[in-house]
């Protein structure tokens, strides 16, 4: 089989990412870790919004539950391999996604968005109030000295940024690859059909309710994984992880990159993290600048940066797509 341009680009990208920390730039290594984690989170959100057309305003709940669950596991079971605590995060996200999906099973559109928002706020309140387990507004800490042992390779501390980079990169690549694979399976295509026309999917004999539950659980798993990775990176967990603003940040990332294609959320999370970092070093009011950028993007390129670049590559200009004209892709 002849390797396509896409495969080569992908392999090159992986090689570049793998060699990146060897350049020795701690600052960018650090930022890239954050980008990877947010990429997983944004892609998990893409599975719901972009792929299945389910608008959730409570995605941070899944992220936060994964973060808390893995944090508690890290604290309570100090012998457990760290990679397993990441899986614990994923599985608790899966459970949480399943339960949320079950409750909002019949809701669509704005009702779904607000149903998920309400549920995520309830979970936030639990994290806030249940001091004995979650530490309340103090949050939880205490695993920054944790060592990760690898057979043959030796022991690494979570504090070691280069090690953490590879650790996170591995999980992020696995998660994103799994999501990509999912979109290509019969189940993935069924999800697209639900986005496209749920009514007709129903009349083709597709169990839309079960498909929705499954994608909620799957998305929860991915979000939980990213939450678990995030606490390894931040070395702490707090209720802000699962509040509303985190949910909206995920939405902003998705829209910046473009929520209608798979690559969009990944690009979006990179742009978001870097903008946040650089803007906040210039001004305290960085959110204002970010907001203006967001509004401009929505006005001129509502399908996000990835579509914008694709359009440019195709036509050689950044002229806005005419209304009513369909772009084949």
């Amino acid at each position: 089989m002849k390797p396509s341009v896409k495969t080569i680009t992908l392999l090159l990208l992986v090689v570049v990412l793998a060699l990146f920390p060897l350049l020795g730039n701690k600052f960018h290594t650090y930022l890239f870790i954050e980008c990877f984690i947010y990429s997983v989170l944004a892609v998990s959100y893409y599975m719901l919004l972009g792929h299945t057309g389910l608008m959730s305003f409570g995605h941070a709940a899944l992220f936060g539950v994964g973060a808390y669950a893995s944090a508690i596991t890290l604290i309570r079971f100090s012998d457990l391999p760290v990679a397993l605590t990441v899986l614990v995060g994923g599985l608790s996200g899966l459970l949480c996604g399943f339960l949320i999906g079950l409750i909002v099973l019949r809701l669509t559109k704005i009702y779904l968005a607000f149903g998920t928002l309400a549920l995520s706020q309830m979970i936030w309140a639990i994290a806030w109030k249940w001091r004995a387990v979650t530490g309340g507004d103090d949050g939880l800490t205490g695993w920054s000295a944790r060592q990760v042992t690898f057979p043959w390779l030796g022991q690494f501390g979570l504090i070691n940024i280069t090690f953490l980079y590879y650790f996170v990169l591995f999980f992020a690549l696995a998660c994103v690859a799994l999501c990509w694979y999912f979109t290509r399976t019969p189940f993935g295509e069924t999800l697209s059909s639900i986005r496209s026309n749920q009514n007709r999917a129903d009349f083709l004999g597709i169990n839309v309710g079960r498909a929705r539950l499954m994608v909620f659980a799957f998305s929860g798993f991915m979000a939980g994984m990213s939450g678990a990775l995030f606490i390894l990176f931040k070395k702490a967990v707090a209720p802000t992880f699962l509040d509303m603003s985190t949910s909206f940040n995920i939405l902003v990332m998705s829209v910046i990159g473009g929520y209608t294609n798979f690559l969009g959320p990944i690009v979006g999370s990179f742009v978001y993290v870097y903008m946040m970092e650089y803007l906040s070093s210039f001004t305290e009011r960085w959110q204002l600048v970010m907001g203006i950028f967001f509004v401009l993007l929505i006005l001129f390129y509502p399908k996000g940066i990835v579509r914008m670049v694709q359009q440019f590559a195709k036509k050689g200009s950044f002229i806005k797509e005419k209304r009513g004209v369909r772009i084949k892709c």
Partner: protein
Amino acid sequence: MLILKGVSKYFGHLGVIQKVDLEVIKGERHALIGPNGAGKSTLFNLITGYYRPSGGDIYFKNTRINSLAPHEITRLGIARSFQIINIFKDMTVYENMRITITAKHRMSLKFGCRIVSLGQIREESEFVLSRVGLLPFMDEPAGTLGYSQQRALEVGLAVALDPELLLLDEPGAGLSPDETRAIVGLVKEVTVGKTLVIVEHDMDVVFDLADRISVLNYGTIVASGTPDDIRRNETVKEIYLGNVLEKKSTARV
């Protein structure tokens, strides 16, 4: 095969369907006719589970299907097409068909393999597409097709499920006589040995295609029988066919 017993549907106080009794016999082509607003589409929606009947019972193959969800009824073997085009417009024609064939094989929720690796699904999809004449448009987004092609896809999706009972809601709606004939020809071909209920306004089509006809008016069945019975029925002539038949006879003179 399909039996409706005293089925009613009320929207508030408006009785759209009132105590309808109807039996569709296995292997027949049954046409449902009636003026606009008679309740034909509502009846389809009741049978396929989109609405629940306010009263009465619906049986399919001796199973009561009143309270089943649309996807459950579809899985029992009833597939329908829609009067207003209801396809996956932002997906390609091929994807439309592939989703349908996947659903037919109950593989919609499988994630153990990539969909392109399923040879049988591909073959069947291409086969049905070639039958409805859409193979050349396989990679076009369905929403960009011309109206008559979207119509063909609409009917094609229902046919692709290979149901025991096929319900077609005006498959020729909005088409030119030639295009209607093409679709009806297809319907005739694919429903050999199957059971069909069809709503259609074109009387030539109805009398040509149907083994039995039921006439619906203001939510009740006013007549049911062979095409000849219906032609002779005085009530039917009065409420519905009168004009058509008169026109025909004058045209012939």
